[in-house]
């Protein structure tokens, strides 16, 4: 019945001859067809990280607040005090979204939410980090619209608010969009659930959606280049059912609270295969299941198909012996399909039967943990020289600011986040539109801030420095909201690792991220690697997305980027700056992605963030906003929009105005203060000894920047172009 194992079959499974010999050694025999399938998914990059593991070891992963480390379980867990903890993680669903944007993005959301409640945490909010080709391309608009409505569909329905994220548009994402979704959940320390099959003889339950032929071998799919054929790779796209997942979520949390559960594991990539062998491996036990007992949606499914299916909304639950009935009652209350499919064994085997006949028998630990590790060849690309500001092209600066603000990557993302229910659960106290989202975790009475950041233009020019900038910006965004960074999750999106230049980018970015995490004392608690982000046109710009979570000590410290009232005094923390390399000024206005991107000096960054937090604690800060894409001028405009309050500022710099207004040097924050407290701010900053300058005052309906010349724009006009830019592309085309 099942095909014999020819070299072609082996190759089709993405298994190299060396890997095949390794499999023979592990088994002491040839694998059968089903076992070959099992190895192929478990040893895919997506599941085994065989290409990236040596790099990931460079991340700092421990710290006083770390309760569950990266890689130990489905998501890391961080202490937030008073016996409360947060579990969070970021996941990509790039390839599925490229073929079916709505379902691809929706199931991406479902997957990361499952990772979080598998830890025993109640998911409380999400962020989404998105990358597309330019909106001028109809196909890109289609992908963008589909992805956003897919995220909205799943997140809104299940009732987990999407409160922040980012969206960038660049040619390098043509045909290969990035969809990275972050989710955070809350739990008590004692509620941390484990994905281990412990307790020999414990029954193993399957609960959730019936298994169909969905997403056969999606993990392998995610570990290949996107080609024309991948359009034909159709079966790899799954359809999500957020309603089913909502029931599963509530049932699992009720189940975990009941104390009947010995172990729990979601079925994500590689479905039943991954969950059975990983729980066995973590528990140093064996797991034996019979596929005949698995609830199925379709008839005539082979063991191969059943094991490798990636049907969504399914969990594997190891129940404490004797508690079966209590568990069944909960499944039935929530109208969920379930079945008792097997037992925990003592022989360390992943043993899969079909109607009693053994179809798979593999040592679980070897399968899960002994995937081959590859040290890929690296080839450095030349790092560009610093951009010579004397060579700046002639630019009409009056038109430059409105043009930058109307560029989709900088423009308001309102068109996106208005489609997301960001208010459900009554916790979003700083809504999308400020540097970080801030969420009030009611059950814990804590204020958590979160942001996701990555400037992939910097990374394409200088991967290490770009990755450092991503960490610096994330930390800066948290500081601007009044938060102290706690920990990081990351999503490494890169091209094919067999290309030495791509792999060099990965390596450089990982080292840059690691350096940044050490500089801010924030551990990496987990993340996701997505390689093979290529279209026929080539690899994407390296995109090491950073999700950073911070804690705000007291409600009074919550700060937004919006100017608050007429007459407030505006300060700039940091220098006026001068670096134009990798700037959006060059990219958007002159179509040039070039130059050495801004350097990151962590000591300065940290000093400035600490100074800002000190001022916030002293109650002297009315608003704070960092400078990112588009530099100081864009940042000032962004501060003025929400309350439609203009400003008059003076920039003293020996650079030309284009540089003073639009350079993207790092470590810069615009803060405002009550005039009565301005003197206090000055003396405090002087005593701390960080660079700063007094820029001007808030007020009026104009944004006026006095540099060598005086530049003036009506705030209402700037705001109109900025807020409608994406909608104009999407709704009227």
């Amino acid at each position, binding site marked *: 019945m099942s095909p014999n194992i020819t070299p072609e079959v082996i190759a089709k499974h993405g298994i190299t001859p060396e890997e095949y010999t390794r499999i023979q050694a592990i088994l002491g025999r040839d694998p059968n067809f089903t076992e070959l399938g099992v190895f192929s998914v478990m040893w895919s990059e997506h599941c085994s990280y065989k290409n990236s593991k040596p790099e990931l070891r460079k991340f700092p992963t421990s710290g006083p607040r770390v309760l569950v480390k990266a890689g130990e379980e489905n998501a890391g867990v961080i202490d937030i005090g008073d016996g409360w903890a947060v579990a969070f993680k970021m996941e990509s669903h790039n390839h599925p979204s490229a073929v079916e944007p709505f379902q691809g993005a929706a199931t991406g959301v479902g997957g990361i939410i499952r990772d979080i409640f598998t830890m025993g945490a109640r998911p409380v909010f999400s962020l989404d980090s998105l990358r597309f080709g330019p909106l001028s391309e109809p196909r890109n608009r289609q992908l963008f619209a589909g992805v956003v409505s897919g995220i909205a569909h799943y997140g809104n329905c299940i*009732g987990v608010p999407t409160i922040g994220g980012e969206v960038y548009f660049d040619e390098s994402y043509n045909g290969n969009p990035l969809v990275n979704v972050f989710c955070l959940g809350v739990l008590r320390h004692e509620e941390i659930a484990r994905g281990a099959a412990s307790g020999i003889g414990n029954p193993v339950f399957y609960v959730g959606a019936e298994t169909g032929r969905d997403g056969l071998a999606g993990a392998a799919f995610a570990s290949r280049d996107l080609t024309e054929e991948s359009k034909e790779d159709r079966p790899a796209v799954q359809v999500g059912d*957020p309603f089913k997942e*909502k029931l599963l979520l509530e049932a699992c949390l009720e189940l975990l609270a009941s104390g009947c559960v010995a172990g729990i594991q979601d079925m994500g990539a590689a479905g039943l295969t991954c969950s059975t062998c990983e729980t066995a491996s973590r528990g140093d036990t064996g797991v034996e299941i019979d596929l005949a007992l698995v609830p199925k949606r379709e008839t005539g499914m082979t063991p191969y198909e059943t094991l490798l299916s990636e049907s969504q909304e399914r969990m594997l639950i190891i129940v404490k012996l004797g508690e079966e009935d209590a568990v069944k009652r909960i499944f039935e209350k929530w*109208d969920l399909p379930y079945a008792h499919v097997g037992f925990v064994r003592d022989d360390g085997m992943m043993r899969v039967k079909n109607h009693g006949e053994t179809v798979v028998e593999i040592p679980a630990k070897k399968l899960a943990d002994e995937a081959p590790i590859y040290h890929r060849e690296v080839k450095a690309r030349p790092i560009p020289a610093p951009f010579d500001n004397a060579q700046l092209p002639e630019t009409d600066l009056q038109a430059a600011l409105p043009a930058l603000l109307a560029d989709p990557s900088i423009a308001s993302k309102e068109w996106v986040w*208005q489609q*997301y229910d960001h208010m459900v659960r*009554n916790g*979003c106290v700083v809504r999308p539109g400020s540097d970080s989202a801030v969420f*009030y975790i009611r059950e814990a009475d804590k204020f958590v801030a979160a942001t996701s950041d990555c400037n992939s233009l910097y990374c394409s020019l200088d991967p290490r420095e770009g990755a450092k900038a991503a960490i610096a910006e994330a930390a800066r965004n948290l500081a601007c909201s009044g938060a102290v960074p706690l920990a990081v999750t990351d999503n490494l999106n890169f091209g094919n690792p067999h290309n030495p230049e791509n792999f060099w980018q990965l390596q450089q970015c990982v080292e840059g991220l690691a350096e940044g995490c050490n500089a801010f004392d924030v551990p990496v608690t987990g993340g996701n690697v997505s390689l093979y982000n290529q279209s026929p046109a080539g690899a994407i710009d390296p995109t090491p997305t950073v999700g950073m979570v911070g804690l705000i000590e007291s409600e009074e410290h919550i700060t937004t980027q919006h100017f608050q009232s007429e007459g407030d005094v505006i300060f700039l923390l940091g220098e006026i700056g001068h670096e134009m390399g990798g700037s959006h000024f060059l990219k958007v206005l002159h179509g040039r992605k070039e130059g050495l991107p801004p350097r990151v000096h962590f000591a300065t960054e940290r000093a400035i963030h600490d100074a800002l937090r000190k001022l916030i604690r002293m109650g002297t800060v009315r608003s704070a906003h960092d400078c990112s894409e588009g530099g100081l001028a864009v940042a000032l405009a962004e501060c003025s929009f929400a309350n439609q309050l203009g400003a008059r500022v003076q920039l003293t710099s020996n650079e030309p105005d284009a540089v003073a207004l639009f350079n993207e040097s790092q470590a810069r924050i615009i803060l405002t203060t009550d005039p009565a407290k301005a003197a206090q701010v000055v003396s405090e900053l002087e005593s701390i000894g960080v660079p700063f300058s007094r820029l001007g005052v808030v007020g009026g309906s104009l944004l006026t920047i006095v540099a060598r010349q005086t530049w003036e724009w009506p705030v209402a006009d700037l705001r109109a172009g900025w807020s409608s830019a994406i909608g104009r592309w999407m709704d009227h085309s």
Partner: protein
Amino acid sequence: MKFAVIRFPGSNCDQDCQRSIDALPGASAEYVWHKETSLAGYDAMVLPGGFSYGDYLRCGAIARFSPIMPAVRAAAAEGKLVIGICNGFQILCEAGLLPGALVRNEKLHFVCRDTWLRVETAETPFTNRCAAGDILKIPVAHGEGRYTADTETLAELNANGQVVLRYTEANGQVSPAANPNGSMENIAGVCNAARNVFGLMPHPDRATEQRLGSEDGRVIFESMLNLSYVA
């Protein structure tokens, strides 16, 4: 006063409702599972927001056949207070306990944002602590909230003062821009002829605390708590 917050599979504002109501002096709110068949002992019923049964087919179309619904119907007939918020409003319309229907937003997108609502009548158990003309800032979050009814029904609603809330600008002006979903006549909330059943798309349960951006939603629940009010 005892509130029942009815939990359908897929409800996701049940907690928000329970907490916002339970926090009010004189109010206690408990969950009632949709498989229950009695609402004895409760003074007011809350059908919360969410995606009951995934909102498959039409929002509220399946939920209205839940085992608990006959009890809701009976409570309404007895003159007890029934409020449906967002998905709850959709369920009440599908069940025929309120006139009209809620269809896909005109712009076809889900919309989550603050809206300003003009109180059209204070003569209801749900708005008696307001004055007609008051403006409330309360957020919406829905994909299918466009209120639709035939001309006769609309005329009747207007004649009987059953239109309780309309979307307006912050200054109380009715305008297309203020209408988040294309509802007929900017209608945001209506009550039945007996005035004891009320449905609205905006979420008062999300506007009971300054830290969330508004406290204006509280007055709806406080009105329900006003035992001295007689229609």
